[in-house]
C-alpha cells in the first residue's frame, strides 16, 4: 500500500494551492476546493483501512519511508509514515470530521473578508494533524505537534484585530510551549536511553530500561500531553481559545488536536506499562481535571465556554482510562467524543450564527421552534454526552468507568469520582439545552435583560465582516435556521454520535470490534470486570446521568413556575431535593462553582502569569548592569577575567 503518504499530502496540497490562488478561488470556491481535498484524503484513509482489514491481524502495519530527514550518524531521522490500526483510526476520524467541518465552514464563514485564508489555515491544520498521527517517529510527530499548535494559534487569532482573540492566541502559544518543552526533553531522554525514537523499534529495545527512566520519560511526555490536551495545570488556554471561529473550536479544540496528547501516550503504550507510577499520576491528573472542569462548566453562561470546559472534562476521562491501563477504552471514548463534541460545537455555531453572534445563553430560550434541525441534532448530541443509553457516549464512558473501577489502587474511589463527574456532565449539559432550546421564555425579547447582559458579556465571537447592526441582538430578532452546508454535517454527526456505540459493545467479545482491531498493536491488554459487575456499574452510571438531567430540569426549566410543582405532589420530595439543591446552587454552591471558575482565572492563570513575571523581573533585575556606561562594561569585563583566573588558580598544580 503505497498510498499512505497521500493522506497528509492532499490537505497539504490544498494548503499550497490556496496560498497563491486562494483569493482567486474566493468565496465559496476556496472552501469547496479544500473540502474536496480533505474528503479525498478521507477516501485514501478509508482505502488504507480496508487494505489493512483484509490482512491477517498480526500483519496490519504499513511502514513507508519517504526519505532521510536528518542524516546525522546515530541520530538519523526519516520522513516516514506508519499506518497501523491506531494511526489509521485516528486518520479516519480526522479526515472524516475534518471534511465535514470544512463543508460546514463553507456556510459558516460565508462573506468573511479572509474567507480563503481561513481555509488555507484549516487545511494546513489537517495536514499537520495527519503528520502527527501517521509519523513513524517521535520527531516527525513533534513536527506535526508544532504544526497543529501553530495553526491553532493562527486560527484562534483569526480575527486578529480583536484584543481578546490575540490574548487567547498568545495564551495558547505559551502553554503549548511549556508542553513542548516536556515533549522535546522526553524525546531526547528516550533517544539517550534506548537509542531510537522510531515507533517500530521502540518496543524491541525497551528491555533494558529501568522503571525510573521509563517513569521520567512518560511523565515528560505527559507534560507535553497536558499542554496540548488541556489538562491540569495547563488547561487555561482552551476556554480562552473559544475566541476563534466556531468550526475551529469544533475541529481543533474538540475533535482532533486536543486528543493528540491521548494519541501520543497511546503510541508510547509499551513504555507506559513500564512505568506504573506514571500511569497512576496520569489517572489522577485526568480525574482531577475531569472534576474541576465539570464543576467550572456549571458556572458558565457562554455557550462555547460550557462546551470548552466539558471538553476538558471529557479529555480527563480519556487520561483516566489511559492511566488505568485501558488503552482501548481511551481510544473508544476519544472517537465517540469526537463525534458528539464536534456535533455540539457545530450546533452551537449554528445557534450563535442565528443569534447575531451572541454567545450568552441567558439571552437564549425556546430556540427549538426557530432552529428545528439544529435543535434535534443538538439534543441527540446532548443525550450522547450525558450518558443516556443507547447513545454512543454511554458505552464509551461506561468502559472508562469500568476500567477505573478495576484499576489496582483506589479503583472504587476513582470510579466514584468518575460517576460524580458523569452526574455533573448530565447536569450542565441539560442546563445548556434547557437554557437554549426550552426554558420559559425567549429571553432576548426582554430589552432590559438584553441591555444588562449584552453589555456584560465580554466575550464576543463577533465577525468584523457582518455589518454593525448584526453585531447586536435586537428584541425583534428572529432566529433563522442555517443553510444546508451547515445542517448536513450536523445530521451526519448526529447519526454518528447516536450509533457510534456499536464500535465496542460490551455484551460479548465478538461485539468488541474496536478492541479486536486495536489489540494486535498493543503490547498489553486490559482485563474488563466480569459481566455482572459491569451491569451494576452501568446501572449506577445511568442513574447518575438521569439524576443529573432531572436535577437540571427542575432547576432551570421549572423553577419559574411554582404552581406546577404543587400540582405534582409525587415530585415533592424530588422538589425538596431540588429546592435544597437550588439553594445550594444559588448560595454557597454558586460560590463553589464560581470559585472553581475563578481558580482557573486566578490561580492557574496566575501561575502562568507568575512564571512570566518571574522571568520578566529577572530580566529587569539584570538591566542595571546594562548601564550604557562603557566604564562599567570594562569593569565587568575585567571582573570576569578575574573570576576565570581565580578558577584556574584553584585548578593549578604547583
Amino acid at each position, binding site marked *: 500500500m503505497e498510498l499512505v503518504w497521500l493522506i497528509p499530502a492532499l490537505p497539504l496540497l490544498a494548503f499550497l494551492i490556496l496560498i497563491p490562488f486562494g483569493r482567486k478561488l474566493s468565496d465559496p470556491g476556496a472552501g469547496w476546493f479544500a473540502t474536496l481535498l480533505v474528503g479525498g484524503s478521507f477516501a485514501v484513509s478509508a482505502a488504507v483501512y480496508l487494505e489493512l482489514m483484509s490482512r491477517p491481524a498480526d500483519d496490519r502495519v504499513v511502514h513507508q519511508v519517504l526519505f*532521510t*530527514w*536528518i*542524516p*546525522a*550518524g*546515530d*541520530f538519523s531521522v526519516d520522513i516516514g509514515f506508519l499506518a497501523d490500526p491506531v494511526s489509521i483510526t485516528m486518520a479516519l476520524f480526522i479526515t472524516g470530521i475534518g471534511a465535514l467541518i470544512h463543508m460546514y465552514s463553507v456556510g459558516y464563514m460565508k462573506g468573511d473578508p479572509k474567507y480563503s485564508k481561513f481555509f488555507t489555515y484549516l487545511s494546513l491544520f489537517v495536514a499537520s494533524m495527519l503528520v502527527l498521527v501517521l509519523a513513524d517517529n517521535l520527531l516527525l510527530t*513533534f*513536527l506535526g505537534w*508544532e*504544526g497543529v499548535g*501553530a495553526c491553532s494559534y493562527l486560527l484562534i*487569532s483569526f480575527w*486578529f*484585530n480583536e*484584543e481578546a*482573540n*490575540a490574548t487567547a*492566541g*498568545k495564551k495558547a*502559544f*505559551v502553554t503549548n*510551549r*511549556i508542553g*513542548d*518543552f516536556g515533549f*522535546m*526533553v522526553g524525546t*531526547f531522554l528516550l*533517544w*539517550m536511553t534506548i537509542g531510537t525514537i522510531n515507533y517500530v523499534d521502540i518496543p524491541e529495545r525497551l528491555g533494558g530500561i529501568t522503571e525510573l527512566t521509563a517513569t521520567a520519560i512518560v511523565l515528560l511526555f505527559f507534560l507535553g500531553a497536558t499542554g496540548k490536551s488541556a489538562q491540569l495545570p495547563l488547561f487555561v488556554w482552551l476556554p480562552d481559545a473559544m475566541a476563534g471561529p466556531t468550526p475551529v473550536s469544533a475541529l481543533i479544540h474538540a475533535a482532533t488536536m486536543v486528543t493528540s496528547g491521548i494519541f501520543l501516550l497511546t503510541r508510547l503504550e509499551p513504555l507506559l506499562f513500564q512505568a506504573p507510577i506514571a500511569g497512576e499520576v496520569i489517572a489522577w491528573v485526568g480525574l482531577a481535571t475531569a472534576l474541576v472542569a465539570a464543576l467550572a462548566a456549571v458556572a458558565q453562561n457562554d455557550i462555547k465556554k460550557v462546551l470548552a470546559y466539558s471538553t476538558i472534562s471529557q479529555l480527563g476521562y480519556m487520561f483516566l482510562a489511559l492511566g488505568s491501563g485501558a488503552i482501548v477504552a481511551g481510544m473508544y471514548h476519544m472517537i465517540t467524543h469526537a463525534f458528539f463534541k464536534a456535533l455540539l460545537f457545530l450546533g452551537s455555531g449554528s445557534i450563535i450564527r442565528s443569534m447575531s453572534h451572541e454567545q450568552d445563553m441567558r439571552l437564549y430560550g425556546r430556540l427549538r421552534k426557530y432552529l428545528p434541525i439544529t435543535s434535534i441534532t443538538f439534543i441527540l448530541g446532548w443525550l450522547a454526552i450525558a450518558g443516556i443509553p443507547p447513545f454512543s457516549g454511554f458505552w464509551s464512558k461506561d468502559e472508562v468507568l469500568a476500567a477505573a473501577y478495576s484499576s489496582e489502587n483506589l479503583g472504587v474511589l476513582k470510579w466514584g469520582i468518575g460517576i460524580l463527574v458523569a452526574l455533573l456532565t448530565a447536569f450542565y449539559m441539560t442546563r445548556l439545552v434547557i437554557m437554549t432550546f426550552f426554558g420559559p421564555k425567549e429571553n432576548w425579547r426582554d430589552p432590559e435583560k438584553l441591555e444588562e447582559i449584552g453589555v456584560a458579556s465580554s466575550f464576543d465571537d463577533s465577525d468584523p465582516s457582518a455589518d454593525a447592526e448584526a453585531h447586536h441582538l435586537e428584541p425583534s430578532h428572529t432566529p433563522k435556521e442555517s443553510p444546508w452546508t451547515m445542517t448536513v454535517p450536523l445530521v451526519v454527526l448526529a447519526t454518528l454520535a447516536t450509533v457510534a456505540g456499536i464500535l465496542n459493545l460490551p455484551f460479548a467479545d465478538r461485539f468488541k470490534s474496536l478492541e479486536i482491531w486495536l489489540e494486535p498493536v498493543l503490547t498489553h491488554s486490559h482485563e474488563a470486570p466480569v459481566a455482572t459487575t459491569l451491569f451494576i456499574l452501568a446501572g449506577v452510571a445511568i442513574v447518575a446521568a438521569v439524576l443529573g438531567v432531572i436535577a437540571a430540569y427542575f432547576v432551570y426549566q421549572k423553577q419559574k413556575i411554582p404552581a406546577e410543582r404543587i400540582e405534582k405532589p409525587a415530585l415533592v420530595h424530588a422538589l425538596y431535593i431540588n429546592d435544597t439543591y437550588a439553594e445550594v446552587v444559588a448560595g454557597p454552591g454558586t460560590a463553589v462553582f464560581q470559585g472553581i471558575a475563578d481558580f482557573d482565572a486566578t490561580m492557574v492563570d496566575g501561575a502562568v502569569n507568575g512564571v*512570566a513575571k518571574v*522571568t*520578566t523581573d*529577572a*530580566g*529587569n533585575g*539584570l538591566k542595571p548592569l*546594562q548601564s*550604557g556606561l*562603557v566604564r*562599567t*562594561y*570594562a569593569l*565587568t*569585563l*575585567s*571582573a*570576569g*577575567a578575574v573570576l*576565570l*583566573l581565580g*578558577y*584556574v*588558580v584553584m*585548578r*593549578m*598544580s*604547583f
Partner: protein
Amino acid sequence: MIGLLAHTPDDLAAGNFSHSVSWSAIAPALILMLGGILLLVIVSVFRGKLSSGFFTAWTVIVAGGAIAAAIPLWHDVQEDGARSEMAGSVGLDGFSLFVTGVICISVIFAALFLDGYLRREKLEGPEWYVLLLLSAAGGVTMASANDLLVLFVGLEILSIAVYILAAMHSRRVTSQEAGLKYFVLGAFSSAFLLYGIAFVYGGTGTTNLVSINIFLADNVITQNGLLLAGLALLLVGFGFKIAAVPFHLWTPDVYQGAPTPVVTYMAGGVKVAAFAGMIRVFVVTFGPTYVNEWRPMVYALAVLSLVVGALMAIVQTNVKRMLAFSSISHAGFILLGVLASSDQGTAAALFYLLVYTFMVAGSFGVATLIGRTGDGRQNLGDYRGLGRSRPGLALTFTVFLLAQAGVPLTGGFMAKLYVIGAIVESGMTVLALIAMLSAVISAFLYLRIVVSMYFEASTDSADSEEPAELSGPPVRIPKLAGLALGLALVAVLALGIVPGPATRVAGDATAELVPEVEVPQ
C-alpha cells in the same frame, strides 16, 4: 621551525631561499584583500564616475569569487587531506573553508542591504564596501590561522574594520557612540587576549597551534599555572568577540547604534570568525589534552549566555536590542557545540553558524527596512501593523523569528537539535536542559515581535475601528534588499526541510592541525 622561504638555518645563512608560496591555498583571503584594495584604487582613478551600485556589485562578485575559490580547495582537502601552508601559519582544512564560505555569505548579505540603506541615508561611498571586504579577509585569516600570531592579526583586521563601520553613520550620534564603545572595549579585550597569548607562549614555548598541539601531546606539564592562566585570558578575548556573558555588555548598545546592515555582518560574519578561531584554539589545539581544564569555564559562559541572553531579551522594547540579546543566547547555543569538544560538536556548531548567518541576516535585514530614514524606528511600536501594511515583509520576518525560536521545519530547529544532540552525546544533560529552557523563554520574545506585527492595535487608533497601521513614513523595500531577504528566507526553510546536504558538508568540515610538509629541494 624555519619554513617557507628558507628550509634550514644553513639555507638561511647561505642566502638559499626557495620561493614556494602556495598562492592557491590562501586564494579566498587573497581575493578578498585584493578585491578591497583594488576597489579603493578603482575609485581613486574614476573619482565620481562610479555609481554606488557598482560598489555593491563589486563586493558581491568578490565575495562570490572567494567562495568559488574555496570550492576546488574543498575538493582537494576532501581527497588529499588537510595541510598547512605558508610556513605552517595557515591551516587548509575543511573547517577553514567552510567558515570562509559562511563569512563570505554574510558579506554578500551585508552588501545587498547596504546598497539601499546608503542611498536612503545619503551616505554612499566605496569605503563601506572596502572595509567590509578587508574585514572579511581578516575573518578568513582567523578561521584558517594555524598560529596564534596570525590569528591575532586576523582578529585585529576583522575588528578594527568593524569598529569603523559601526561608527560610519555620520548622521547618527548613536552610531558614533556605538563605535567608541565597541572600540574601547574591543581594544581592552584584545589586551587580555594578547596577555593570554603571551602566557600560552611562556607555557608551551611557541605560538604555532600545530606545535602547541604536538608539544602538549608529548609532554606533561607538571606546573601548568602559566598555561591555564593563558587559557583563561584567551577565553576573555574570545568571549568578548562572540558576545558571551559576562563579556557581552557591549553587544546590545553596539547593535542598536551601529548602521543596521553593518549589524547583519557584525552578528553574522564577525561572530562566525570569532567562533572559528575559538574552536581552532580550544577544541582542536587544547581539546585533546586540556579539555577538562577549559570546559568548566566555557560551561559557565554558555549557561550564563543562554540564561541572561533570554531573560534580558524579553524585557527590551527596542527590536534591535532584542535581537542583540537573542544573539547572545544563540552564542550560548553555539558554545554547546564547542563544549562538546568533538568532531560532532564542531560540525553542529558549524551548521548552527551557517543557519544563524541566514537567520540573523534576514532579521536585521528586515530591521534595516523598518528603521526607515534615520535608521531609528526600531521600537516594538514601530513594527505595529506591519502585518497589514506589508504582509509579505511581515511574513518573512515571522519566518526568521520562528527560525530563531527553533520551530520545526526551519533551519533554526535543526541547528538547535544538532547542538543539543552533540551535548547530550558528550554527557552534559543538565546543560541540554538549560538550553531547552532558554529556548522556551526566548520563544516569548519572538512572539512579542510577531504579536506586535499582526495583532496589536496601534496606540493612536486604539478606539477607532481602523486597522493598525505603521507609524511614520512608508516602508520601502529596495530590490536588492528584497532579493537578499528572499535568499535568506529560502535558505532558512531549505535548511530546515532538507538539512541533509548541509549537515553532510558540515560533518566533512573537520578541523585538523597538520604539520607542514617540508618541500623537497
